[in-house]
């Protein structure tokens, strides 16, 4: 199966996985093994090394932002630079959405981070290259969610209001 991106991982410098998105069907066991192996390799690299490495039959493109590593796996014939660009765009989106994003934002709002990623990439392909339209979609979806939630108060829900 050929998709642009095989998977995307976000993990911390301590080797804690913060986000994972797989664009190809992979067995859980393999996923775990790959994540562990890859984290080890990437974390071992020094800061001033280039962002690419070859691993198994894949190319790994990674970039570190503060304490978080963003790491994508692409295929041999895919373009590394554009993947780097994708990573950066995703970080920008997170930054815009959370307002100078930090690792904790992603930990505690991990589902939001997923929603943003899903608006940005779909099936490993870039869905929309415009930051504005991605953010707009997210905001509107959030609005919808709040509409759902806003009328509720605890008492209402308890049927006492």
């Amino acid at each position, binding site marked *: 199966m*050929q998709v642009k991106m095989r998977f995307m991982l976000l993990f911390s410098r301590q080797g804690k*996985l913060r986000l994972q998105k797989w664009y190809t069907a992979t067995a859980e066991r393999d996923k*775990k093994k790959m994540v562990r192996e890859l984290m080890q390799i990437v974390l071992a690299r020094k800061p001033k*090394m*280039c962002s690419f490495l070859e691993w198994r039959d894949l190319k790994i493109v990674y970039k570190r932002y503060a304490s978080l590593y963003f790491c994508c796996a692409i295929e041999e014939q895919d*373009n590394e630079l554009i993947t780097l660009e994708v990573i950066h765009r995703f970080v920008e989106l997170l930054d815009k959405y959370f307002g100078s994003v930090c690792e904790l934002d992603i930990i505690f709002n991990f*589902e939001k981070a997923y929603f943003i990623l899903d608006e940005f990439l779909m099936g490993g392909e870039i*869905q929309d*290259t415009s930051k504005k339209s991605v953010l707009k979609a997210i905001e509107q979806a959030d609005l919808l969610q709040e509409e759902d939630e806003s009328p509720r108060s605890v008492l209402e829900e308890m049927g006492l209001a």
Partner: protein
Amino acid sequence: MALKIVKGSIDRMFDKNLQDLVRGIRNHKEDEAKYISTCIDEIKQELKQDNIAVKANAVCKLTYLQMLGYDVSWAAFNIVEVMSSSKFTYKRIGYLAASQCFHESTDVIMLTTNQIRKDLSSPNQYDTGVALTGLSCFVTPDLARDLANDIMTLMSHTKPYIRKKAVLIMYKVFLKYPESLRPAFPRLKEKLEDPDPGVQSAAVNVICELARRNPKNYLSLAPLFFKLMTSSTNNWVLIKIIKLFGALTPLEPRLGKKLIEPLTNLIHRKIHIFSSHKMLCSQSHLIVSLSRIAVLISLSSGMPNHSASIQVMKYLGLLAMSKILKTHPKSVQSHKDLILQCLDDKDESIRLRALDLLYGMVSKKNLMEIVKKLMLHVDKAEGTTYRDELLTKIIDICSQSNYQYITNFEWYISILVELTRLEGTRHGHLIASQMLDVAIRVRAIRVFAVAQMATLLDNAHLLTGNMQRMGICEVLYAAAWICGEFSEHLENPMQTLEAMLRPKVATLPGHIQAVYVQNAAKLFATVLKNQEGNTDSTAAQETSQLMIDRLPLFVQSANLEVQERASCILQLVKYIQKLQQKDVEVAEEVCALFAGELNPVAPKAQKKVPVPEGLDLDAWINEPPSESESEDEQPKAIFAKEEPKHSRPRHTEVDEKELARRREARKQEQANNPFYIKASPSSQKAYQEAPGVEHIPVVQIDLSVPLKVPGLPMSDQYVKLEEERRQKERADKKKKEKKKRKEKRSGRGRKHDSGPESEEDITPAHMVDIVTEEMPEVHRSCLNITMNLKGNARTNMISAKGAVSSYVVSGGIFLPVKSSKHKKKKQKKEKEEKEKKKKKKHHHHHHHSDGGGEESVQNGTVEEEEPLPVSVYDIQGNLQDGSQVVVSVIFENKCDSFLKSMEFNVLDSLNSKLQRPEGSGPHDGLTVPFQLPPGVSNEARFVFTVQSIVMPQKLKGTLTFIVKNEDSSTHEKLDFKLHFTCTSYLITTPCYSDAFAKLLESGDLKCSSVRLEGVIMPFHHLLARICFHHHFSVVERIDSCASMYSRSIQGHHVCLLVKTSGQTVSIDAKCDEPTLLGNVLDEIKQTFSQC
């Protein structure tokens, strides 16, 4: 009921939400697993409640846990429940959980089809959006089939937000359910021109991905994309389009030309588009941008602080170069220094990329330096992967194109030996095969190799000591074999023999032990031979005893091969011991067991043996078997049945079609059978265009054994039969082909640059053989010749005869003679290998009557005083270089004195020059690299550079030497002449009649003819004579008329048409060089005028 709701809500107030869970996990660092298991229990409780909000919260927490690596597949059904909630908040969580946890084998997916369909058609675009996003992660073939229509409708949705998602997910749907592609494609194409840029880029994405898989179908879209490329400003889209064109251009070359301009524009406009480097390889013109890349790399290497982004540029630049290297090696080679610099980079990714490029960078000059650098890296490397990569690269680089760049094989062997010290490499077998290859093919290196291997065997414990190093013990396989096979070169065979019989050997893998056992026997033979010379016979008996003591260990081996060999050899040794005790000399016979040289044959050599004329390999030899039972039996099965060779003859009336089908099947099988000799009509046709391709003329053979067995066994037998018969020819052909190929590569234009560049050509100089460094190309051919037979390459033999003051040299023999004047005679003579020997005998009998042309003419003068030829020599064109001729001279000392300090010197003419080592003057002689004890002969080779080959030539020379007697030594001198005939520049080259006809038609050839009168010999003798003496090959023969072909070392074609009637032979000849032709014809005439 109300109470239940209330209860649920109250519970919920005290439930953990996601934040609490995350916080909790962070606070329970020590007992995380325990904490999470309690959380999971809670979640299970929550999932049991009816309240959808509680469930959604639980599912959200599960999604988080799933990411941490916990199994949540048990909650799949609850996820579906949450997905189907009508509230967007929950739906969103449900789909997210599904996209993270579901995969194709999740069975609840079947239940989701209707829910997803409902969501897809929801009036709320975000419901639809969330469904599409989720679907993109867990779409199955079933879902794709069921939902393809709905998604297709969505592609025309009013909202661009939905349209772009629908377009993107279509790609996934196509992958899972390819049938959907055809109906959906027109709509997809429409989307390329969608007003919304997001939708447009999505459509470009999808079509690009599709086109990458099957570009042919998308060629028609090229104009559309071209328009997009020139109009779009979106870099992402541009990159995709360029990538698409990269896939399309190979199919439509015109496209390439059209693209150059817009692409160069793009590259100049935005440097980062150059990341679309894939394009560069298909666009030769864009090589311009290579310089840009190089600039980038150099820029980035020059910068003191290597920032990551500069490293990125470096990496990409190297990557781009490796793509360009394939098509334009030259342009990359100019950046060699830069690339070598990158080898020292701290970053492994960059080093690996640079390594890839090295392959194209090496030359004879820098190979050692580069490998040295790599070896340093090997020592430093930490990771096994990188080290293994280095190892394979080193071997790759060194062994590429037949060790083309290796000038010193001793060095290479040492490198290989050094590599064996690597810990934990998986490439032991690679090193082993290189060792074997080099030791077998490079004759001169054997002494050195054997010594090295003996050390290796002696220190085998270092290699095997550690289980991790098991990969490397493969090397012992090679070491044992080399030591056994070439045991005559061993300095201390006894010690090696002991090393090979150590008990520790039994821990090695079986196949290695087997080689040990077998080669121990070979060594044993050598040791016996050495020891039997001694007066004391106990040593030999002790050796046998050693074998008898140690071999039983192997007889008990679990490995069958080891066991079998060991017991055979053990019995043999016991028998030998018995004979020894009776004082019988056995060494000779034991050695005979392993006598004979193994001649390696190129893996493809078999293919080059042509199918003899009249043998139709496709014709049935027996009646074709009947196929009474089933018509639809597989061809394979037919074959299998056929295999038992004498199956009862069956009669069939098989129709033509069936026969054809079977023939096809058989051809197929033959094609896949490496042992099968194939006819290669296609390559024959290609001959004229590429004058260097593998060709072997079809030779008439009579098979002495009837060919009865169909299929493989027959071809095997045939091969064996033919092997001997052809070996000679093949050796000849093969060598020539090799040379030809090389010539093609090095180009004819090289003949003038014998200056520093020719140093480049110094090849396996260290063919320690007889020759030293000043013999460049010869060595390479040596290397190749050893592939087959050694002596056969000799095509042209000239014997020189003469008398020296007190020595007359005869047939390679120096003899004291009374003559007082220097006299030197030279005869040109051409002989086959057998005849050569005969000739030598003739010389001994001072008689030279055998057909050799000029010989008898010049013979007379010498006759009266014991005519004793100086030496036998042979001039041989060097096909690799049209300007070189190799002269091999055999020196034989027939006197009782010791000859030493021989110096060979030739007075250079303007046209021909003896190649001397660098730094020596034009009149210096070459030291013959050996001394001659009485009765010994040896061969030396000298390379001459020849400018023009159209005229025959004689060169005067002298050989000076010191004759050392017991009490005195005298300085002696011997004059001689070397006769370079035009014929000696010709090289027997096979040619096929169609190629021949084409050549004649071409009209580039000048005509000439000659008549020979009074030739009384059968026509085929006449042809054989021309072939043999003048290096022609018969192209075609019809009755008393034959066409012949030959080629000069500088590539002149020489064609002959020979006709005979009665005693008159007329030869019409054509050649692109009239002078050469005239001289060759004169020489032919001379050959026949003497018979």
